[in-house]
């Protein structure tokens, strides 16, 4: 009997204990973190903006840096009169320590304070002010962007003007150009036709223009060797341009009689349908040389596989980065990206393209010079950190200058 009574008492104590325990724990926890006000509050006009913004920054209170401390965040209060009524304008999440007031009126004077919100109380900072927002005429943080933009624009325009005036500008010969000649020659030797495809290029793709001048060269060679040239098309406008180019080349080669428009047909304007169509032509005509020049998507894989299986020499060229790996793996020679533009400038220098190419090249030279110089400074800076900390400081300064914002 006594035992049962004891057990009952024991149970009551246990239940009460369990109920009270959380309160003890939480009160101990709350006591462990003192309620303090945010300190070191600073307010300033947000730089480099169109006005209406004031930035507030303060040091986090101790409870803010502890997880699960029951600290909620900070409330922001604003007034136009330091002694008047302050209005709650916003809330900063735990751990942020800053707030951007985006509702200020330019020129108006404001006063602020920040109130830390604890689980069991508040503490507010000192009032600061007056502070007002204003708009800036130049975004000084973007000076570096301005310098680079101006430099590149200037170089491109300058070289285009020079090229327009007919000045000779050097472009190196791309190895792929020899490969083109060889391929045309090989097809002729084997007595097989040549196939050329623009892929899915539209006339608005710059790469289509470059491909056209490469087609011009191939057409001229094929006219000289009297080898049949097939150009199946995906885009009707590109087709018209291709027909013009080929006709012109045949005239230049003195063989306008060989030109036959049915060799440059329109196939279809759907991706895999085009691939299947080109595959069919390749299996029927068995071309000895195949040129993939222009913009390609996933169909490149299907077409170049068939080209390989019929034993043709394949030469690809595209700016489509995602397709380049597959072309390199399945073709005999591939013009990679800008190499196509260089090749086309080498073959047929058009002022715009040539000037742009030179402008880009000079920009690259400048970027390379910057890279090399600063990397050397940086390396020296780390190596000579002890005796000459100045070098490392210079490096860090230079590096920081490139921060874009």
């Amino acid at each position: 009997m006594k035992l049962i009574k004891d057990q009952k008492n024991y149970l009551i104590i246990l239940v009460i204990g369990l109920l009270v325990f959380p309160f003890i724990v939480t009160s101990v926890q709350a006591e462990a973190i003192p309620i303090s006000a945010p300190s070191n509050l600073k307010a300033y006009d947000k730089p480099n903006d169109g006005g209406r913004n004031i930035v507030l920054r303060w040091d986090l209170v101790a409870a803010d840096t502890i997880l699960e401390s029951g600290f909620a965040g900070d409330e922001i209060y604003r007034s136009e009169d330091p002694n008047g009524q302050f209005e709650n304008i916003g809330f900063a999440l735990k751990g942020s320590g800053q707030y951007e007031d985006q509702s200020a009126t330019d020129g108006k004077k404001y006063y602020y304070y920040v109130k830390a919100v604890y689980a069991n109380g508040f503490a507010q900072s000192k009032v600061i002010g007056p502070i007002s927002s204003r708009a800036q005429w130049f975004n000084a943080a973007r000076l570096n962007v301005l310098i680079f933009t101006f430099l590149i624009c200037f170089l491109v325009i300058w070289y285009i003007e020079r090229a327009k005036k007919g000045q000779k500008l050097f472009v190196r010969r791309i190895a792929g150009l020899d490969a083109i000649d060889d391929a045309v020659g090989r097809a002729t030797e084997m007595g097989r036709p040549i196939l050329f495809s623009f892929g899915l290029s539209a006339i608005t793709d710059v790469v289509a223009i470059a491909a056209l001048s490469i087609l011009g060269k191939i057409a001229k060679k094929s006219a000289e060797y009297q080898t049949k040239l097939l150009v199946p098309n995906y885009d009707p406008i590109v087709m018209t341009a291709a027909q013009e180019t080929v006709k012109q080349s045949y005239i230049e080669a003195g063989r306008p009689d060989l030109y036959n428009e049915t060799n440059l047909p329109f196939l279809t304007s759907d991706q895999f349908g085009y691939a299947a169509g080109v595959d069919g032509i390749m299996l029927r005509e068995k071309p000895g040389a195949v040129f993939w020049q222009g913009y390609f998507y996933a169909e490149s894989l299907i077409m170049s596989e068939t080209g390989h299986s019929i034993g043709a020499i394949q030469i690809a060229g595209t700016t489509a980065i995602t397709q380049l790996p597959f072309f390199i793996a399945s073709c005999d020679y591939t013009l990679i990206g800008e190499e196509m533009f260089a090749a086309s400038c080498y073959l047929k220098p058009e002022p715009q393209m040539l000037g742009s190419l030179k402008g880009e090249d000079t920009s690259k030279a400048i970027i390379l010079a910057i890279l090399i110089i600063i990397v050397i400074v940086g390396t020296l800076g780390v190596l000579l950190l002890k005796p000459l900390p100045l070098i490392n400081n210079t490096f860090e300064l230079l590096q920081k200058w490139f921060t874009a914002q």
Partner: protein
Amino acid sequence: MRNQIPLIIVFATGLIIIITFFIPHEPFGSLEQRFLIWYSIVAGFTMLLGLDSLTRYHLVRIRDKMSGWGFSIVLLFGLFLTLGLGFYTWAKYQSPFTLGSPFMYLYTYVIIPLQATMFALLAFFIASAAYRAFRARTSEATLLLIAAVLIMLGRVPLGGWLEKQVIDLLDFIPGVHLTALKSLSIFALINDWIMDIPQTAAKRGIYIGIVLGGIAMSIRIILGIERSYTSGS
């Protein structure tokens, strides 16, 4: 005049967008925002234009009974079915995009399978090209294929599995204890290194070139030297 006005518009809008990037002060700051909103609206009309030329193209095919004109009917049927269900759902459910509506039914059971399967075809084509066309004919292609194989091994659990098999096999040889190597995951480390260092370096170099090309192109457009965007109209 007719040819001048578009060039003036391109020049003015392009230049204003560049200037507002550097000048936050009014009126430039809000002018940029205004232009961007307009751009969004005009871009919407551009998409409708695509619909217009698509229907015209296929109507002509049907009218002239060109080869495959039956498929043009299929295409137009799909188009008008979608439009019909779309506006019907919109009227009935307040928004065409309510899950469980007829319009979303079409999305789930027609668009998703068609779109996803189109690109799933490529897995087969890659496999067949791997067997029949990807050849190490030049030193460049060899390097490319080796890197590709290392990535294909290291990026998925295959590399780790292969390592484990090799180590287990070698463990039978007395005196050789390689169990410590098991946790190394060599293929995965090779994969990470290739991606982080040489791959990143080359992509950066390539893209610096591409970005410069893009800037040059934009300059030519703004200055009216490059006009190919007006062709086709």
